[in-house]
């Protein structure tokens, strides 16, 4: 090799090294190289950030200092076994393990290990990705989801009790009416035993009515707090919550007025309504391509209208006729009280919940809540 060639080769090598060094310094993954004895050879800035050690503190020491004690202990064994048997536990596979920071705290990380084995040098390169943020995000989402489920279960239970009370009340009302009519048919010729039996039917109907009334009293909550809220914020938050855990390929449009709309409502209850309507809409669209959910806020005088429109298949007439009755459901695991709850809540806010089937398809649910023009006492 001529001197000139050698010079060129050196230049090329220096360039490669400079490139590699600059990459090691900026990659977001932590990079740790070790030799066959597990001794750290290099430790890049991302690894410094992830573990809290400086490169100087780790280079020359055993890499098991970066692992929780029990794993660190086993590591030397894994390394030895791989070198003698070639049995891979992690090389080229990658897995999620725990790392230990300088302060002793541990964190989940994704670890990929590569191997460099050339004449005179045998090294392993570990790529470390800190999963703390991702785990935290997943935990928060799971928490939110649990909150949503709890909220709707609780409300379903309460409303189920009142729906049962309502349903049982109907036949009781009919019995009462029949007894009232029959009493007018009684006269002096009526056998006393028949008169007595009718009065006993009346007494038993009365007893059943008392039971129903006490059940209703049980679920009737005290005065629920009403607050003035920015409807856009409320709807944005609640629909995000409703979409948690759904395979959300649904495009969500929020159509809001130029001026923010404030409403005087029971926050949890109105959240319940929005949650129910959004979930129903998403389920109706069933992830079909082009699924679009549009929620509009439409102020109208002393009330604010809210419309939830989907691009689903629309409602069959048979379903529509019984839509708001409790225990009506098209879902295999549904209680069928969702829309009945919504209607009750909306009525308690002085509005009505209605449904439309526009000619272009889909379904629109509309309801309104009392508006508040002065937002002075508003929670932003």
């Amino acid at each position, binding site marked *: 090799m001529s001197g000139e060639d050698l010079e060129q080769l050196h230049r090329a090598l220096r360039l490669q090294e400079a490139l590699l060094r600059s990459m090691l310094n900026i990659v977001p993954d932590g990079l740790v190289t070790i030799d066959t004895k597990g001794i750290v050879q290099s430790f890049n800035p991302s690894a410094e950030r992830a573990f809290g050690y400086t490169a100087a503190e780790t280079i020359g020491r055993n890499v098991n200092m970066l692992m929780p004690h029990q794993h660190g202990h086993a590591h030397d064994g894994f390394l030895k076994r791989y070198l003698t048997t070639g049995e891979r536990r992690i090389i080229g596979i990658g897995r999620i393990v725990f790392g230990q920071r300088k302060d002793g705290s541990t964190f989940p990380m994704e670890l990929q290990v590569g191997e460099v084995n050339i004449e005179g040098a045998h090294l392993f390169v570990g790529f470390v990705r800190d999963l703390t943020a991702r785990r935290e995000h997943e935990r928060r989402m799971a928490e939110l989801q649990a909150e949503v489920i709890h909220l709707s279960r609780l409300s379903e239970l309460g409303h189920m009790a009142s729906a049962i009370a309502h349903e049982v009340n*109907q036949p009781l009302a009919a019995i009462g009416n*029949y007894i009232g*009519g029959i009493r007018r048919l009684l006269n002096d010729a009526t056998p006393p035993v028949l008169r007595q039996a009718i009065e006993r039917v009346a007494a038993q109907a009365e007893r059943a009515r008392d039971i129903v009334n006490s059940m209703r009293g049980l679920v009737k909550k005290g005065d629920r707090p009403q607050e003035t809220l920015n409807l856009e914020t409320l709807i944005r938050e609640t629909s995000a919550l409703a979409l948690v855990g759904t395979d959300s390929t649904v495009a969500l449009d929020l159509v809001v007025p130029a001026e923010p709309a404030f409403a005087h409502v029971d926050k949890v209850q109105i959240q319940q309504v929005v949650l129910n309507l959004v979930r129903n809409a998403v389920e109706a669209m069933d992830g079909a391509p082009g699924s679009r959910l549009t929620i509009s806020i439409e102020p109208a005088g002393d009330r604010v209208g809210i419309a939830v429109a989907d691009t689903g298949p629309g409602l069959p007439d048979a379903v529509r006729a019984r839509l708001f009755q409790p225990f009506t459901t098209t879902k295999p695991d549904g209680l069928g009280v969702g829309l009945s709850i919504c209607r009750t809540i909306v*009525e308690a806010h002085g509005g009505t919940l209605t449904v439309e089937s526009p000619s272009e398809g889909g379904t629109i649910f509309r309801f309104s809540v009392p508006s508040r023009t002065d937002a002075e006492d508003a929670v932003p």
Partner: protein
Amino acid sequence: MSEGPSHVVAIVDDDAAVLESFQFLLEMAGFSVVAYASAHAFLAAPASRLRCLIVDQHMPTMTGLELAACLRAQGVDLPVMLVTSAPSPGIEARARAIGVRGVLAKPLPEDEVFAFIRSCDPR
């Protein structure tokens, strides 16, 4: 019954058993009754010269209040009594606003129903 068609009381309820039993009660008490299973059925074929209308609030597709509002919008001057199994201040306020005479809770107190009908002069 001695009363003519102007004495007819119209009742509307989507629950067939409740509707039938209510008709039975009113007829046994001496009133003439025409019964409808929905607000739409009433609007499609209202009997002429009605004495009053007693309508259930909770019905699918059209509620009692919606029917009352619709009649008012058409300029129909018919005394209306709203019946609900879940009375609330909201319903009562809206009933007042559209000129509904009163709101009664189910199961119906007989005496108040009869008093309401009697207060509606036969026309």
